[in-house]
């Protein structure tokens, strides 16, 4: 291996090294590499030396050795970029007020948009987590009633079995009850009783809805009639752990029913993004035993969910299923169709059998608000940039004179707006992160700021679009100046440009005013709903579950409660009062036309129910729990029912209910027994001892606390093993409108943000105008103008713009808000004052904003503004 001539090392390795190495270090390190290679060839041989050289070169590929990208001629774009960045930062620093107005506006705008995005994403993700989501459908029934279609999700109890057996497109059909029908039911293990919400479901339930099971087999959990599946939390409450629960026996009871169940499965608690929240599931067979096993096509006591075969044409299936019930049941008035299960949450409303919105309207509304708020913030940027253009004309002129193309200038201004938007986005993310807990309380959600791919791409998208939108107009406008004119100091602001700026302000304020009108009307409607006369007195009424010994000895229990001081009356009911309860169409009267089906709300009551709720009797008498005959064949209708049946002088007449003649003894004034979204339905009230799920107690006003204490003491001693869980009817009622209430609160916040951002823009413009006109003001003052006249001079323009915005906003907001109100059967009249109030408040806020600036400008000593020339 001896040779005088040094063996040259592989050149490609050295070339590669030269490529990445910092030029300052390249010579000596290359020398080292070669020297080491030479030494190694002598000691270890060429092959080894080559490998080691390669290793050395690779190990040199590290920060500190790799050349920095600074200032190489090849990367000219980088330098341009850096230069623009520097200019942007300098302009931010020089025009601090404009910069902060833009930054604050964009930050709050982006934060609002981000919040709305998180909310919308959460809403849209509801119920989508089931593995079979795209094949998972719910069976819906359209009821034909007096020429109209009413859509309901209640189906016949046996429908699932029939569908699965007879329709090949349906792979699995599973029935179930809604948990709301039973409320909380007690489950007892040894000495311990826990109340939990549960429902009856078919045995394939877990194969249709893929809630994760911790213990147990999906197909077997509900296979046995005495099998029950409970949630992890319930298992921990009753047995200490999920494992311990398996195979144990619990006693379940509801009204007069009770049964022992063996725990066959434990499922993970239902996730937050599931609309259906329950603690335990029991076999549907038990429920069928309760309601009777004969085939009833006219009773609707359950819901039915199906899994379709893959590649099923849903439209064709719906066409085929339409007459499914009618073919099997004579004079049925229902047609059947299936609807995607996940659509239930957002697309829940039907009008005359056609899908008509639902929560999706709120999702759309808030998405629109997000876009509007971002637009408003972008407009601020546009207006302030173009208005301040005069300040930067020299820069543009010089740049153009030394050869900058228009494209480069456009790029510069877009870069500036993108930089600002990025800065704002970072601040906005911080803001969202800080305020998320409050936002979650407000919306009753558990949203987390998880930076997954979706969120990151959305944020990037929003930043990019906002930056481009905000930057586009200034970029095009500023880059269009002609250098000669600029450098000579002549710029004419064209009429078009002035109009554009004014138009943008008008647009901005029109949006804000529309939002304010919306907020006012939503607030008023909610207030109306809370305070409207429901036809019964919801104050001071206590409700609690009828269970245990209370249910067994109802009459004696009621008698004893009535003796408690402060209790005015007590009754019981099968109806949740605030929302729709059970109904029947099996009620016939003399002269009823054949083929007409009328749905009657069915209220079974006990005790002095009508008196307790304070429902007004317009004719006849109330039901008397002390008369045995009143239990057998007496009935009371509401006014709507009487007018639908066309009965004149109804007292004493008989109608046929469930095949039995009953006598009308009274008529009550119409009252709202369901949501105010719906019109009052025909209704009848009977005395009955079965299925009375709730007790209602009216207590004396002003001594609620004492009476509740007495009631609690009495109840716990009377009904051993049960706790006295009560709630007030008015709270229960308010809970129904929680969705509207949340929307109302949320929209208030967002409208507030919109108006603040708009005002920021106006503030900036006013400040700028005042600054530009400082000479004019100085001269006018020197010549004797008063402060008031100068304020007027400066603010006329703004007043005109805001006034125009209000005019534009009125019809738009009227149209939009009317659409929302139409969703309520009972609603406020649109008062002109709602619009006037919104307009005036917008005007006032604008005056305040502009006024401060103009006043400041008008009070400057003219010698000051005129001296510095």
């Amino acid at each position, binding site marked *: 291996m001896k040779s005088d001539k*040094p063996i040259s090392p592989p050149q490609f390795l050295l070339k590669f090294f030269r490529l990445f190495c910092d030029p300052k270090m390249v010579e000596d390190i290359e020398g*080292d590499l070669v*020297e080491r290679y030479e*030494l190694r060839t002598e000691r270890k041989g060429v092959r080894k030396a080559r490998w080691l050289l390669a290793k050395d070169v690779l190990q040199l*590929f590290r920060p*500190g050795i790799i050349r920095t990208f600074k200032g190489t001629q090849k990367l000219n774009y980088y330098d341009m970029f850096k230069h623009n960045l520097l200019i942007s930062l300098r302009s931010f620093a020089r025009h601090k007020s404009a910069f902060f107005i833009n930054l604050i506006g964009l930050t709050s705008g982006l934060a609002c948009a981000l919040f709305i995005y998180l909310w919308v994403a959460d809403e849209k993700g509801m119920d989508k987590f089931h593995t079979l989501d795209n094949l998972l459908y719910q069976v819906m029934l359209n009821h034909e009633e007096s020429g109209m279609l009413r859509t309901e999700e209640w189906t016949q109890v046996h429908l699932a079995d029939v569908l699965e057996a007879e329709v090949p497109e349906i792979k699995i059909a599973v029935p179930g009850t809604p948990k709301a029908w039973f409320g909380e039911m007690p489950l007892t293990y040894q000495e311990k009783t826990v109340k939990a919400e549960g429902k009856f479901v078919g045995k394939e339930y877990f194969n249709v809805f893929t809630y994760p099971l911790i213990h147990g087999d999906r197909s077997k959990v509900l296979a046995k009639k005495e099998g029950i599946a409970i949630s992890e939390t319930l298992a921990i409450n009753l047995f200490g752990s999920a494992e311990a629960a398996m195979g144990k026996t619990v006693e379940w009871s509801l009204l007069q029913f009770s049964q022992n169940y063996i725990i066959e499965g434990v499922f993970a608690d239902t996730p937050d993004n599931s609309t259906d929240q329950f603690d335990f599931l029991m076999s549907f067979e038990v429920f069928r035993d309760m309601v009777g096993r004969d085939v009833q096509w006219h009773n609707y006591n359950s819901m039915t969910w199906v899994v379709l075969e893959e590649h099923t044409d849903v439209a064709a299936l719906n066409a085929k299923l339409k007459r499914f019930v009618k073919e099997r049941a004579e004079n049925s008035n229902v047609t059947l169709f299936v609807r995607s299960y996940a659509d239930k949450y957002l697309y829940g409303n039907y009008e005359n059998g056609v899908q008509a919105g639902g929560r999706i309207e709120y999702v759309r509304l808030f998405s629109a608000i997000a876009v509007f708020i971002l637009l408003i913030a972008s407009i601020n940027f546009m207006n302030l940039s173009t208005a301040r253009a005069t300040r930067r004309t020299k820069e543009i002129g010089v740049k153009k004179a030394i050869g900058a193309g228009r494209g480069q200038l456009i790029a510069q201004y877009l870069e500036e707006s993108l930089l600002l938007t990025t800065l704002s986005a970072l601040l906005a993310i911080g803001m969202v992160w800080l305020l998320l807990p409050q936002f979650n309380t407000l919306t009753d959600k558990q949203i987390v700021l998880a930076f997954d791919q979706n969120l990151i791409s959305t944020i990037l998208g929003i930043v990019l679009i906002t930056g481009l939108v905000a930057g586009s107009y200034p970029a095009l406008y500023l880059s269009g100046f002609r250098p000669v004119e600029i450098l000579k100091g002549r710029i004419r602001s064209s009429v078009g440009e002035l109009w554009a700026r004014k138009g943008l302000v008008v647009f901005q304020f029109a949006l804000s005013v529309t939002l304010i009108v919306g907020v006012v009307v939503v607030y008023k409607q909610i207030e109306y709903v809370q305070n409207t006369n429901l036809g019964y007195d919801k104050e001071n009424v206590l409700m609690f579950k009828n269970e245990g010994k209370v249910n067994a000895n109802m009459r004696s229990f009621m008698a004893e409660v009535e003796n408690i001081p402060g209790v005015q009356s007590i009754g019981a009911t099968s109806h949740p009062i605030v929302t729709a309860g059970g109904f029947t169409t099996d009620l016939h009267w003399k002269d009823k036309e054949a083929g007409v089906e009328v749905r009657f709300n069915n209220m079974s009551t006990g005790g002095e129910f009508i008196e307790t709720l304070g429902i007004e009797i317009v004719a006849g008498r109330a039901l008397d729990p002390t008369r045995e005959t009143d239990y057998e064949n007496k009935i009371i209708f509401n006014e709507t029912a009487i007018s639908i049946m066309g009965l004149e002088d109804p007292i004493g007449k008989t109608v046929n209910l469930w095949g039995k003649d009953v006598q009308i003894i009274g008529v009550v004034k119409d009252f709202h027994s369901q949501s105010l979204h719906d019109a009052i339905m025909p209704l009848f009230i009977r005395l009955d001892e079965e299925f009375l799920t709730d007790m209602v107690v009216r207590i004396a006003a002003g001594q609620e606390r004492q009476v509740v204490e007495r009631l609690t003491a009495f109840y716990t001693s009377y009904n051993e093993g049960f706790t006295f869980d009560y709630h007030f009817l008015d709270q229960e009622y308010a809970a129904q409108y929680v969705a509207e209430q949340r929307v109302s609160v949320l929209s208030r916040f967002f409208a507030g943000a919109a108006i603040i951002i708009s005002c920021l823009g106006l503030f900036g413009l006013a400040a700028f105008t005042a600054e530009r006109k400082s000479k004019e003001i100085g001269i006018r003052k020197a010549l004797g103008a008063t402060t008031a006249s100068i304020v007027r001079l400066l603010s006329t323009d703004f007043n005109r713009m805001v006034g125009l915005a209000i005019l534009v906003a009125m019809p738009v907001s009227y149209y939009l808000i009317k659409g929302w109100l139409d969703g309520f059967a009972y609603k406020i009249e649109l008062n002109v004052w709602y619009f006037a109030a919104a307009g005036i408040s917008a005007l006032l806020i604008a005056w305040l904003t502009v006024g401060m600036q103009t006043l400041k400008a008008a009070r400057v000593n003219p010698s000051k503004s005129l001296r510095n020339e």
Partner: protein
Amino acid sequence: MGKHHLGEFEEIVMLTVAILHGQAYGVAIIEEMETRLKRSVSIGSLQTVLKRLEEKGYLESEMGEATKMRGGKRKRYFKVTNMGKEVLRQAKDQRLGLWNAIPDFV
């Protein structure tokens, strides 16, 4: 300690540069370290440390003459600066102080 903190490898490199006294360039330093300390050192790790120490002002360097060896490339000779010497001394004193503080060390 504090701002004049030297890493273990930094210290060894500076000591080696001091040992070589005017003849300290890349390969020589590596050779010296490999023979004295029996530890293999890559050019990459050495050069980054040298650069860092020079930036801190503990070392200074100048280019030598070109020779026919090493593909005609010049060598960069390193020298410990006064500040570097001070830091080295400090490190040594600290070590010694620690050693002396150990009672009955065999």
